[in-house]
């Protein structure tokens, strides 16, 4: 790992990733050979690093010191409906997703709109490692060391206009590589959104890696959102479009079940999901359940964003 401060990840937690890495390398190599064999331009080293390691500086002020969820759990137990609606399909099926080349289009109420390569998007940003809690709406949680940068930095670069009140994100739609999209389980492509002040909050980040490694596909490669005080489904994966809007975007899960998944979806133990209580959660790897904290324990930093709002109404 090239993280500049001593790592507090136990070696025992890292071991399984070497196994995983070998599988990914095998898939990359075989894909490269396949393309080369077909006479197509191969994948360049610049766009697809052979090594999965990322150069990142730790950011302790934004990190929790809680025990990390083992890499194996964080990369095998995923909700990524584009690869199937059960937890284990993404890890099995996401290997076939082509993440390079990757383009991101910046649209809407923004001065420098356009379609950019991932490299152009990432170039100016220094990568940081931040250890965040992740709380799924299904009552399980993880602690993940993400590698990425503040979304605010990216937003400033592209100069949204004064009419930009919201940011809407869209996931890739590519059913031939994302088998879950072949059935209309959700209204594809997956869409999520944030209010501008939520998007500009220093905790909100775009992640390109975890545990010092490039993001595995099942975790939302090559670039995903991480909003640690909201339920996990707000942290949209494999982003291809960022649009600035005046109107509040309609999230995919809200469209699917408006009474169950609101636009805000802030972690809140006092607002039940209609089908289950949100008072407690199971941290992966633990037997007993923990109490769920308001805003997933980030109330001090983010509660101010919602001052005066009825959080039972704006769930």
């Amino acid at each position, binding site marked *: 790992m090239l993280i500049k401060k001593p790592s507090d990840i136990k070696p025992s937690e890292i071991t399984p990733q070497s196994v995983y890495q070998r599988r990914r390398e095998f898939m990359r190599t075989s894909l490269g050979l396949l393309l080369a064999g077909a006479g197509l331009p191969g994948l360049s080293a610049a766009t697809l690093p052979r090594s999965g390691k990322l150069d990142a500086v730790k950011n302790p002020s934004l990190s929790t010191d809680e025990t990390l969820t083992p890499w194996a759990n964080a990369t095998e137990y995923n909700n990524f409906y584009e690869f199937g609606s059960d937890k284990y399909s993404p890890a099995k099926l996401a290997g076939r997703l082509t993440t390079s080349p990757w383009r991101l289009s910046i649209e809407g109420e923004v001065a420098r709109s356009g379609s950019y390569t991932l490299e152009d998007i990432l170039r100016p940003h220094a990568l940081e490692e931040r250890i965040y809690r992740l709380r799924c709406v299904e009552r399980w949680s993880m602690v993940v060391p993400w590698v990425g940068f503040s979304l605010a930095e990216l937003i400033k670069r592209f100069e949204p206009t004064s009419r930009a009140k919201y940011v809407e994100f869209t996931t890739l739609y590519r059913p031939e590589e994302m088998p879950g999209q072949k059935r209309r389980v959700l209204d594809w492509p997956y869409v999520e959104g944030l209010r501008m002040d939520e998007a500009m909050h220093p905790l909100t980040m775009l992640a390109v890696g975890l545990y010092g490694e490039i993001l595995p596909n099942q975790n939302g490669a090559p670039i995903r959102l991480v909003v640690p005080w909201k339920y996990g489904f707000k942290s949209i994966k494999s982003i291809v479009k960022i649009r600035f809007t005046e109107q509040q975007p309609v999230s995919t899960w809200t469209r*699917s079940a408006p009474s169950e998944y609101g636009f805000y979806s802030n972690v809140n133990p006092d607002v039940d999901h209609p089908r289950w*209580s949100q008072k407690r959660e199971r941290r992966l790897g633990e037997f*007993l359940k923990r109490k769920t904290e308001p805003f997933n324990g980030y109330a001090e930093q983010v509660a101010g964003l919602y001052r005066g709002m009825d959080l039972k109404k704006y769930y």
Partner: protein
Amino acid sequence: MSIDYRLFIKPLVFTACLLPVAWLVWALLSDRLGANPFEELTRQSGLWTLRFLLLTLLMTPLRELLGRAWPLKYRRMLGLFTFFYASAHLLTYLWFDQFFDWQEIFTDIVKRPFITVGMLAWLLLVPLALTSTKAMMKRLGRKWKRLHQLSYGIGLLAVLHFLWLVKADLREPLIYMGILLALLGFRLWHRRRQQFPLRRGKAVADLSS
């Protein structure tokens, strides 16, 4: 001709019915149930309950279709295994999900329809399990059959329980519902055929006369 192999079938079936629970316990102890093993236990015990319920409901149609009596010999055993897996499923919820927090459990039962129907389905299984003995069959006579027709309603509640739990992808619960409806539909069709057994033949006879 010396060994009656049929003597071994019932113990064999009994053992086979225990395999899912044996596998679950082994998988739990050897850390093979994934990242969230206790939720997986709930999920798997629920699925096995549904499978045993459908197997139980399959025995009567199977008798009619094969014209043989042997499927009925397994109906009671399969029904009791349904109750066994349903109870294990309930226990995983009470324990690993709620840790016997009775107030939360009560709230769940009252407020969440999928829990309400699941709980109701289990409660309705209790009298069926209690009256499954030969003695109870004799004592209840005709009433026994009517009582045990509750299993049709239990099947519908169980499938509803699964359907209402799912967030978006309804395929799996709908498959179970399809099988259940086929099994119940067969009974309706068969009953009609028994009520009017001669209708068709009579009509043909009328025409020919």
